[in-house]
């Protein structure tokens, strides 16, 4: 009973110093390190999201200026030929119409070139094509005066959103005092308004930030996602079924296994090189096409899908297989009629996560030429198009202030898609998950 002896024989103060205080301090320190590390990680997440959202939420509204535009006949159809050939209307001098509208609205003399220049600079260049399209669609407008909402120029838009520092001397500012004064007049009259920015979702690429949109890029991304889904789901499921249920244990299947795990960790840019050299250079497919992008992303996501599918096939208990086999089903029937349906929720979850990953992938698409200025919607996957992340990359390289806002806006859109896909995957798993 040595224990009892020490306890009774010695007073508590004289206990051997085993450094318990020091050890507990170390324990607390270590714990604090862990908390700090986690806080740092979460801080970065918050900083990233805050940075994007604070810069980007304004991209969802856009400033428009309403002007009385008179489609004067001598400017849009000087030779009065629209009766025989309506196409002449497309060649009208729409810049002049805008200038006259501004002069009338703001009350300056159209021949005052300095004012006219400042005033027309407030309207986006894309307004001319808007007016042209409007007139070509409805030739009866000639000679009439219509109130038209026109896109404001990018800097005016920024100023209206309060993003331009007005304390900077006028000479170094993009927006001049005179323009600010006009903006105030227009705003007070309700002619300068902020409205929801539908152009962001419907327009194609543009060199003018106020007219640039994600429409074409979203279309390209959609084409690619469909390609990836249609190809990678069946191929991935077939490959997993073979490897999980049929493959004999030999060197070849071992090699395949190592290969799949390795392919999942190959840098994405290498897939871009593969696509460039095989699909474009060797097979002669068109550059910039969504189909090629889809094929490259398919090869990239297949390993992820195969790994997820094999995990969910493995999770189906062997008793299901034994029961089916015992009732006389063939092995193929067992798998396709019983195992696969039970594994399907897990497979779909893995596929959605793979698709979300593919949706955000940029590097391989740069190499196969999807980084291009595409203003027209692609009708088929073989036509040139861009993708959402590539559009973000292209806008990120633009210097103008208004493009930074667009880029952040586009990132918010992309992240929303990704969150929706991941939520879908989580819901799917919750809804159909079975515990055996």
């Amino acid at each position, binding site marked *: 009973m040595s224990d009892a002896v020490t306890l009774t024989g010695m007073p508590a103060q004289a206990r051997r110093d085993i450094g318990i205080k020091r050890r507990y301090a170390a324990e607390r320190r270590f714990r604090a390190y862990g908390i700090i590390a*986690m806080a740092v990680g979460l801080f*970065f997440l918050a900083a990233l999201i805050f*940075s994007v959202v604070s810069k980007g939420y304004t991209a969802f509204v856009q400033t428009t200026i309403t002007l009385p535009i008179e489609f004067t006949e001598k400017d849009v159809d000087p030779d009065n030929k629209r009766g025989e050939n309506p196409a002449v209307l497309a060649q009208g001098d729409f810049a002049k119409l805008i200038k006259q509208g501004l002069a009338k609205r703001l009350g300056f003399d159209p021949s005052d070139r300095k004012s006219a220049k400042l005033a027309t600079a407030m309207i986006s260049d894309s307004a001319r094509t808007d007016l042209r399209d409007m007139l070509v669609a409805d030739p009866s407008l000639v000679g009439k005066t219509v109130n038209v909402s026109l896109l404001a120029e990018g800097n005016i838009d920024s100023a209206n959103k309060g993003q331009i520092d007005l304390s900077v001397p006028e000479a170094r500012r993009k927006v001049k005092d005179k323009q600010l004064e006009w903006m105030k007049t227009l705003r007070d009259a309700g002619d300068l308004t902020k409205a929801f920015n539908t152009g962001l979702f419907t327009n194609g690429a543009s060199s003018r930030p106020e007219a640039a949109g994600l429409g074409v890029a979203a279309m390209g991304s959609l084409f690619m996602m469909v390609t990836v889904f249609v190809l990678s789901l069946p191929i991935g499921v077939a490959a997993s079924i073979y490897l999980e249920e049929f493959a004999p244990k030999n060197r070849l299947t071992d090699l395949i296994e190592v290969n799949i795990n390795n392919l999942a960790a190959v840098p994405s840019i290498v897939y871009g090189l593969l696509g460039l050299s095989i699909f474009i250079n060797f097979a002669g497919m068109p550059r910039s096409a969504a189909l090629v992008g889809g094929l490259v992303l398919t090869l990239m996501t297949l390993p992820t899908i195969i790994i997820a599918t094999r995990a969910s096939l493995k999770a189906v208990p062997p008793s299901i297989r034994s029961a089916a086999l015992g009732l006389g089903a063939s092995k193929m029937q067992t798998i396709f009629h019983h195992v696969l349906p039970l594994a399907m929720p897990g497979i779909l979850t893995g596929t959605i996560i793979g698709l979300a990953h593919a949706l955000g992938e940029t590097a391989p698409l740069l190499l196969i030429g999807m980084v291009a200025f595409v203003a027209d919607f692609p009708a088929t996957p073989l036509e040139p198009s861009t993708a959402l992340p590539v559009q973000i990359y292209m806008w990120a390289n633009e210097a103008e202030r208004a493009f930074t806002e667009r880029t952040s806006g586009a990132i918010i859109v992309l992240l929303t898609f990704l969150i929706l896909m991941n939520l879908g995957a989580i819901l799917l798993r919750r809804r159909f998950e079975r515990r055996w």
Partner: protein
Amino acid sequence: MKTPLILLILALMAIGAYVAGRARSHALSRTSKVKTHSRPAYHSAYVALAGLLPAVLVLIVWSIASPIYIDRTVRATLPSDLRIDQASEALNYGTVSIVARGVEQLTEAEIAAAQAGTVKWPELLVSKAVPVAADVRPEIIQAALKRTAMDAASHKAMAAVCIVVAALGAFLGYRRLAPSFRARNHIEKLMLVTLALCSTIAILTTVGIVVSMLSEATRFFAMVPMHEFFFGTVWDPRFAAAGAGGEGGQFGLIPLLAGTLYIAFFAMLCAVPVGLLSAIYMAEYASPRVRNLAKPALELLAGIPTIVYGFFALVTVGPFLRDISAELNGLVTGNYTNFIQAQSVLTAGIVMGIMLIPFVSSLSDDIITQVPRALRDGSLGLGATRSETIKRVILPAALPGIVSALLLTASRAVGETMIVVLAAGVAARLSPNPFEPMTTVTVKIVNQLTGDLEFTSPQTLVAFALGITLFAITLALNIYALYIVRKYREQYE
């Protein structure tokens, strides 16, 4: 007849065969006294596939072989002065292809008129928006006409053969149907073959990567000696000019590799402590509630596309570091110039480190939780504190797994593209200063391959040499990591 149309016809024939097979199978099961071996679905699928598969096989072989044959024949008809060397032959044959595409749009009357000489060929073609020079050689036009004719004939013949083969196959399949016929076994064997073929796609992808990159890289090394690439210290590829050859450009890998490793080093320096410590905290200390909140939040970082990190580095982290360095410099020396550039090794390293935190933490978390409970209880039972248990027992036990997780993370850092494209700069320099921009292998691959491509110039081909280097580095890291993981798993299972 175009290929999609043929495919449509074949599909319709297959549906027809399926219906016929089904009817026959039902009839068999009604009339025959013995029970049929296979269900009607298998019978009908057998008939349909017996027709479809050989026809599609013929279609594929024909579509590959016939253009090669036509190319050869048409090339041989070009006069010898248009085929002085390979380059001129390729150029002239390119013109033939362009003209042939134009000829396909012409009506027969237009072709006849042009042949008779009433309309000039170049004018006719230009009117169809085909870019042809006015002095195009008549031999080229004739070659193009021959090619179009052969193409059309080949397609017609292909359609006929495919349809005959499909009909014959379906008929033979139909004839085999009988109550004792084991259609299911045939179908299942076919399915098995298909499944096995799909599983080889992983190998095919790897082979495709290696072969495509090696073949392009070999062409590059024929122009630029290997030692100049691997040991060169200057990266200055100049511009790709058609036919300029490789002269003038210097393709030294060392500055790019140095930049890659330097940035990856900073990224690991940032990601490993944060990721590892938060994994330990979540696995050993955190209450389930904290864990359930913090773990998905950290994994959210892994779901964010890398382009977003790149943008974050470009507009937030880079300018922030630049401004804060200017402030620091001003406080210390009174001179308010920034010593950290907006695009720098440090910026790219920090942001890449943020991206890698969830990789390190979730991989290490898995490994730490895999360490058997008994080891932990034993250590705690002997009076060790929790941190002592972690440091002296759990981490050593999990070390191989953690090392492999770190290797996988490093391989990601080396192969990461979008962050460095936006945040690291494009200047290929060798300098030990992390506050200045450096460039990486991946940045240069992107730089060399965006814009106009000339697959004969070293400026383009060097990207593949860089790619194969990158692939080799990441492959080595991955395989070593997977090897450790496998070995480690066996220990506790």
